[in-house]
């Protein structure tokens, strides 16, 4: 690179690199450091180096471990529901019906609304509308306040997350389906393959790239969920729906255990990276060429 070019290179990249370094890189490195100290967040108080103590503590923290399990339960349920629904809708919408565009528009709408606001809308539905439905229909074993029981409160979060994300995966599946040449389905139909066979033998294998993306997006989205958690259940009842991200937030800013909370945040990062990368590697392997 000539000296002149070096100058241009710096001029074009330096502003963003400066912002990016101070906002992402530096906090990430400092954060690793914080996970080895004990500190309550008050600037005047000392930060005491405790080695791996925070990591040892979090492994025995009942609240943290149960929060991790609940997050896994939530993620698995959400992953299945979001993708089954998104795929089913995308198959219906790509049947070239006159109403397809209108339907697609409607299914995607919730995705544009923020998780915090979605959570509040559904809080009304799960508490008051459900109670109302139970009283009117007598089906009070189904329709009761879902947010006061740990298990149904978790299902409520799965439903809201699905409502938010199904339209998003639908868009990606539609793009995938439209990329499959029509002749392939036609040829199979001529050969006598029924709808189910055409789906499982032709469409789904060719949709593997879309599956890779959608599973990645739902997996990382579900694992990191915070806004819906905050507005729908606030982690309640009795911390039973306090998922991973909220547990970290509360440990740091609620209980003031900055070191321990940061150690949890590092573990969180390692888990998110490991789980999503594993998933991408596995589904990438299953992608086929035609």
């Amino acid at each position, binding site marked *: 690179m000539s000296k002149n070019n070096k100058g*241009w290179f710096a001029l*074009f990249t330096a502003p963003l690199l400066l912002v990016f370094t101070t906002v992402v890189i530096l906090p990430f490195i400092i954060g690793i450091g914080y996970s080895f100290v004990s500190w309550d967040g008050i600037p005047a108080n000392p930060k005491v180096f405790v080695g791996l103590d925070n990591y040892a503590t979090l492994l025995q923290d009942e609240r943290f471990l149960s929060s991790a399990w609940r997050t896994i339960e939530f993620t698995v349920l959400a992953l299945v529901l979001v993708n089954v629904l998104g795929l089913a809708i995308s198959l219906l919408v790509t049947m070239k019906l006159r109403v397809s565009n209108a339907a697609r528009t409607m299914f995607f709408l919730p995705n544009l609304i923020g998780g915090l606001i979605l959570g509040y809308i559904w809080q009304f539905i799960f508490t008051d509308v459900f109670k109302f439905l139970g009283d009117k229909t007598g089906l009070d074993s189904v329709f009761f306040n879902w947010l006061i029981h740990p298990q149904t409160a978790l299902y409520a979060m799965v439903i809201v997350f699905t409502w938010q994300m199904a339209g998003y995966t639908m868009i990606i599946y539609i793009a995938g389906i439209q990329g499959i040449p029509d002749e392939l389905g036609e040829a199979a139909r001529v050969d006598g393959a029924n709808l189910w066979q055409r789906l499982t033998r032709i469409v789904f294998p060719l949709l593997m790239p879309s599956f890779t993306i959608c599973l990645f997006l739902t997996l990382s989205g579900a694992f990191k969920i915070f806004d819906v958690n905050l507005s729908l259940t606030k982690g309640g009842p009795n911390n039973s729906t306090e998922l991973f991200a909220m547990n970290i937030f509360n440990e740091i800013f609620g209980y003031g255990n*900055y070191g321990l909370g940061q150690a949890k945040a590092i573990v969180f990062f390692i888990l998110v990276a490991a789980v999503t990368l594993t998933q991408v590697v596995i589904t990438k392997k299953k992608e086929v060429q035609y």
Partner: protein
Amino acid sequence: MNRASRTTVSTLLIALALAFLSPIYLMLVNSFKDRAELYRSALALPSSYSFQYYSKAMDKMNFLTAFGNSLYITIVSVLFVVVLASMTAWMLVRTDDRLSRIIFLVFVSTMLIPFQTLMMPLMQVMDWIRTTLHIPMLNTRGGLIYMNIGFHASMAVFLFHGFIKSVPVALEEAATLDGCSKFGVFWRIVFPMLKTITITVAILDVIAMWNDYLLPSLTLSDKALRTIPLSTFYFFGEFTIQWNLAMAGLTLTIIPVVVFYMFAQKYIIKGIAAGAVK
């Protein structure tokens, strides 16, 4: 498929879509009802339409201020992200050396870091900048915009990088021979060709920044600086929930989103698909 079954599937699909949006319906109809009517008939259309809860919610949420803050912060942040990330990505693609590859790799690999891993140390860094360099990073809209740019940099660089790789270099070389500076080449020749990916980046970032709650909640403490998600949060926390008032407030927050969706629907759906597939 014959005509009769097409009609059946169409009807089914629309019915499903309407059922899917029933929460929006419930929010709307109950924003007009008084307390008694809401508990008597939560599902029915309201018996009368009065906007008293809307004006009350608007007042309590300080809605117009929050709307202005959200709009200002989102627009300025997105403009900066688009300009800085496209310039950076172009240089990284056109300068084929080790440094460029390392910088790009760093951008991409940080995309996996969750916000929760960075939030606490980020606040420390910003506080340090505030106290030692006397730049007001916390509790200012400018500070939040700065952090927004940082958090959305990797994704934008990644998307621009992928797109620029497919842009032929010949035109740029011709312009350079004609005596155009790098700056001129980029703004006159390259940037106009990046329109599709610019729209994708802008749409993805607008949605993410407009709806973001956690970062603004950590950086903005002044009431006058609250964005829409922040004022919604405090609106719900301030008093025991009156659902009619709450539903009116939520409807207010959704109106700008729906208007944006109506005008930019084509670009939004294309942008989402393009952004995800890359």
